[in-house]
């Protein structure tokens, strides 16, 4: 029992720290990458290549004056950023970062919680995530904040549908499991799910962009129309938490995509490679290699998120709704039907 507690504590602390670190350095990479894409250099003054920039930004956020509007609902106003960041971090508990590690005779999965209905849990948590935005926007008692919050919630509802249906198709083709670690493990023959679910991945990717409020779906905070959107009234560290949580969201959804569709810690010919190196199953070398593979995939996805942000202009609200309801939802249904028919004829699906 004690062993279990220690193992869970270590893994929780490590993953929490890594999530925060990645979120902090995503802000740096976002600015650096944006600069590089626009023929600039990006941050270059704080530390080598601006690597201390996140610390400077964090310090600035901490020491700024904290303003809570008189007309706001103070309890909810304070609650919202906390709720947003907690849900962002909680979504990360499912991710199996590496193949299980063998210490003594027991295998320790390198994952905080192996929920057997992981996919449903993930959908539930990400949809709670929008509560932070909604509560924050509503409690600010400001037109712009409210509009931002309404947009965020409408967008979340529209895109969650298509996302969920795309995930059903994925689950069918992945052999009917709802557990995140099973889905990743099932790809260890070297064939990632993207091969069977290209359309599903595309839908999931677009929906993930919308769910994380990233450009081109950042209508909830579009500064050209809504000043700052739902966080117009927020300042200092509460604003910092909102921005931070968005980057954690992005990190988690990148990890989810890499795990669901790109094999997570697996890579082609992984078994052959491990055999050749003479690494036993459960060896820390395998875990480490797997972790690096997963991590690199996640970082690539984060970069793609940013790459898209600095390429595509923001959608208009009606275009957003058209895309969600008239394009992605029918497409995801079509994808589901195709997957079902295919799996039925392969004999994997019984009615």
């Amino acid at each position: 029992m004690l062993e279990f507690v220690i193992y869970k504590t270590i893994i929780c602390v490590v993953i929490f720290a890594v999530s925060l670190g990645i979120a902090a350095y995503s802000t740096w990479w976002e600015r650096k990458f944006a600069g590089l894409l626009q023929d600039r250099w990006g941050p270059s003054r704080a530390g080598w290549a601006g690597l201390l920039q996140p610390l400077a930004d964090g310090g600035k956020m901490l020491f700024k004056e904290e303003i809570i509007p008189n007309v706001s609902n103070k309890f909810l106003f304070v609650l919202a950023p906390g709720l947003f960041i907690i849900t962002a971090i909680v979504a990360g508990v499912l991710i199996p970062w590496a193949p299980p590690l063998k210490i003594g005779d027991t295998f320790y999965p390198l994952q905080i919680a192996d929920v057997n209905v992981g996919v449903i849990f993930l959908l539930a948590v990400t949809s709670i995530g929008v509560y932070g935005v909604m509560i924050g926007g509503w409690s600010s008692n400001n037109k712009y904040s409210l509009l931002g919050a309404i947009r965020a919630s409408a967008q979340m509802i529209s895109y969650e549908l298509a996302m969920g249906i795309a995930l059903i198709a994925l689950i069918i083709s992945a052999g009917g499991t709802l557990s995140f670690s099973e889905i990743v493990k099932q790809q260890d023959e070297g064939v990632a799910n993207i091969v069977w679910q290209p359309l599903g991945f595309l839908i999931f990717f677009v929906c993930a962009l919308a769910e994380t409020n990233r450009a081109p779906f950042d209508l909830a905070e579009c500064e050209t129309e809504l000043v700052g959107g739902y966080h117009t009234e927020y300042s200092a560290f509460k604003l910092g938490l909102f921005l931070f949580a968005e980057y954690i969201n992005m990190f988690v959804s990148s990890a989810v995509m890499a795990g669901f569709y790109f094999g997570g810690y697996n890579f082609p010919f992984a078994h052959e490679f491990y055999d050749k190196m003479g690494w036993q199953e459960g060896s820390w070398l395998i875990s480490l290699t797997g972790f690096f593979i997963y991590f690199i995939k996640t970082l690539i996805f984060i970069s793609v998120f940013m790459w898209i942000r600095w390429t595509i202009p923001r959608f208009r609200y009606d275009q957003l709704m058209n895309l969600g309801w008239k394009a992605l939802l029918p497409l995801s249904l079509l994808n589901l039907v195709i997957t079902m028919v295919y799996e039925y004829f392969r004999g994997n699906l019984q009615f």
Partner: protein
Amino acid sequence: MQLTNRSKQVSFKEMTVAEKIYFPAIVKGMAVTFSHLFKKRPTIMYPEQKREYAAVYRGQHVLKRDDNGAERCTSCGMCAVACPAEAITMESGERKKGEEHLYREEKYAKTYEINMLRCIFCGLCEEACPKEAIFLTDRIVDAEYERDTFIYGKDKLVEKMDKRIDVTKRQTPEVLAFKKIPGLKHNELYTGKLEKGKH
């Protein structure tokens, strides 16, 4: 009326299927942004790396001394008159005996101030000066926190003898040739005993 030949006839034709999907256009756009990752960046990292200035760049002023270290300025006020921004003020003083190594002529500028916030760096003071005393240089006026620190006095304007500023590149060939003509008072250096009648 047509000003340029770049105007385009706008058409409102229906979008093709490929255009309606948007996806090819998005991929194309992303390829464009990606190609910019490898392009040359025009950024100049300023304090470490400086743009090359022209020899006649009009930056912070300098009040020249002659080769003996005597100030060339005689406080004639031509520069202040020429100045369109009225940035220059000065006070004249009379040279006392024994100060001949400090000031070239009997009259000199006791104070000489240029307000760098007013100055538009047009270079008319330089053109007006009959004594080759004031020049603009390729130095940049520093940023300051207070307004009054932008009023540069003689302490900042007069050149130091150990850090002389070369302005020969700013002078036309005619001026440089003129300076080589012997016998002209303008070109002489004070040697301690000057001949009577020549001054």
